[in-house]
């Protein structure tokens, strides 16, 4: 009785901590410096209220990951390259959560060429490498294509926040990291073990195939193992393309700030 009470209290402690964890995020939000512009909607894609909501979200997640989460949209009248635009913006404006030209992730939409570029600087470069930025880009591209910009931006911020919670080098979409997969697997294991306990409570069968076998008179009288033929099938091995760092998505700005990156059209 006492033992089961202990188990129950451990369980409740767990769920209490689990439920309390989003609260800690809200208190951290208050520490964000106010009045910092994070969304530069030069192309005018967002409504006033969307702009405010997304700014709040960007500040909240940015404080959580100590990284400025920035959105830049442009009609690109000068028809510059989207990657160059992003780099110049970083050099010129100097965003960064910790300091000017510090930790930042930038999403740039070039509405003229319908191109999107994602760049991670400093902490964001480490935690959001080219591969992770590619994942984020492929997540939001369908919404960008259909014109649901606010939704795409929201997904972008949430995914940045989520991916920056994983150590560099691991796959952030590993199902083992999914809390629902963890919960589901735990419940299945618990269910199987308890079901086995219920079944075994009535006594188990403790005889096996040799209990009543008369080994002296039993045995193989005749056996044949005749080889007929051999069949061979082959399958191409899927080798993972190693994304060369530096070469693919990222680069270095004119001001000498190196960054990770991912580009594509929508």
């Amino acid at each position, binding site marked *: *009785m006492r033992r*089961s009470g202990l*188990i*129950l209290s*451990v*369980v409740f402690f*767990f769920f209490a901590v*689990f439920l309390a964890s989003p609260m800690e995020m809200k208190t951290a939000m208050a520490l964000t410096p106010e009045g910092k512009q994070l969304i530069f909607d030069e192309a005018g894609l967002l409504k006033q209220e969307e702009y405010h909501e997304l700014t709040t979200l960007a500040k909240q997640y940015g404080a959580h990951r100590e990284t400025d989460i920035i959105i830049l949209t442009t009609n690109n009248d000068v028809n510059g390259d989207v990657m160059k635009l992003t780099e110049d913006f970083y050099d010129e404006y100097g965003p960064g959560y910790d300091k000017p030209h510090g930790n930042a992730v930038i999403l740039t939409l070039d509405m003229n060429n319908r191109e999107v570029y994602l760049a991670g600087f400093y902490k964001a470069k480490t935690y959001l490498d080219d591969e992770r930025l590619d994942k984020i880009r492929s997540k939001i591209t369908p919404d960008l294509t259909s014109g649901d910009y606010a939704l795409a931006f929201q997904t972008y911020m949430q995914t940045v926040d989520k991916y920056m*919670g*994983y150590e560099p080098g*691991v796959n*952030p979409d*590993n199902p*083992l990291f999914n*809390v629902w997969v*963890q*919960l589901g*697997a*735990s*419940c299945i*294991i*618990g*269910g199987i*073990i*308890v079901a086995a*306990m*219920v079944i075994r*409570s*009535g*006594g*188990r*069968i*403790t*005889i*096996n*195939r040799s*209990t*009543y*076998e*008369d080994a002296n*008179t*039993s*045995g*193989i*009288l*005749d*056996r044949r*193992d*005749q*080889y*007929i*033929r*051999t069949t*061979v*099938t*082959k*399958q*191409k*091995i899927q*080798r993972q393309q190693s994304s060369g760092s530096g070469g693919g998505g990222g680069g270095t700005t004119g001001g000498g700030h190196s960054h990770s990156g991912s580009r594509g059209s929508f």
Partner: protein
Amino acid sequence: MQVIDFKCPNCGSDMVYDSESGMLSCHSCGRTDDIKLMPDPLKRNVFSEGEATEYHCKSCGAVVITDADTTATSCSFCGSGIVLGDRLTGKLAPALVIPFSISKEEAMRAFRKWCRNGRLTPNGFMTADRVKGITGMYVPFWLYELNNAVEVHAHGTRVSTYTKGDYRYTETQHFDVYRKIRLNYVDVPIDASEKMNDELMDKLEPFPYDQLKSFKTAYLAGYIAEKYNFDEKELFPRAKSKIHPFIEEYIRSTMTQYTTVNYTNKQIDTKLGHAEYALLPVWVVHYDYNKLEYTFAMNGQTGKVVGKPPISKRKVMTWFAGISASCFLSLKLISWMMGGGFW
């Protein structure tokens, strides 16, 4: 002369089988008799044909109240142990018996201990203070000798994989497999009493066959015994189905070198060698809990307890929550160590 009792030649008290010494013993004067050396009263008596309709206690003369299957019981008036001789002769004569080695007191202790260990049983059940009755019963079993001739044709494969260049190769070797097997089983027990639950009796196994003795009526003194309701031919199908999974396992064990085996033709011919009528010792415990009666059985030699105890939903939920929560914590820790973050 259908009724047999065991009176002490010294003092006239009732003698009973003593599970500790294995002797017929008198509790009043302490006399013990070796059953193996005693002449069996069954062999001396000639019973009239057909079953008697009424039995009278030889001690007090009262009518012995039994049901149609009982072969040994005690008088409900004076408590004398009685054996109903005509139900143990002719076709109904047992060949073998395994006497009890666990006394009533030991059985009670073992049952209480078993109740306490029930992790899912309600707390009230664990105290085991509602035992309504504990009965030492000789349950009729048929011990089968089964001779099997097995012939199997099968298609077996051995699969190996290797990589060469950019390709993974899977090489499958095909074989034509044949096995001819002789498989004999001895003393496969099948309970022959209608009253006893087959599943319960199966779980009581194994019985220690080194304790098998030629049947002597005196072993029943002080216990309840039943006669069989089904003969060896009627229960042959059940014996066959009992060994069937063992035969399957044996066949597969002769083909372990193959990755997959597909039987193209399998013939199992089971012949009944012979079947012996044996009485095996079982303590039957009746237990009242929440106005429901539960029946448990204990192997009278090994002390193994079987039977469905009541299950506490609260305890099931507690265990489920505890195990799931610790699994969840472990998974969290694993994902954290892999760099997945804790929350």
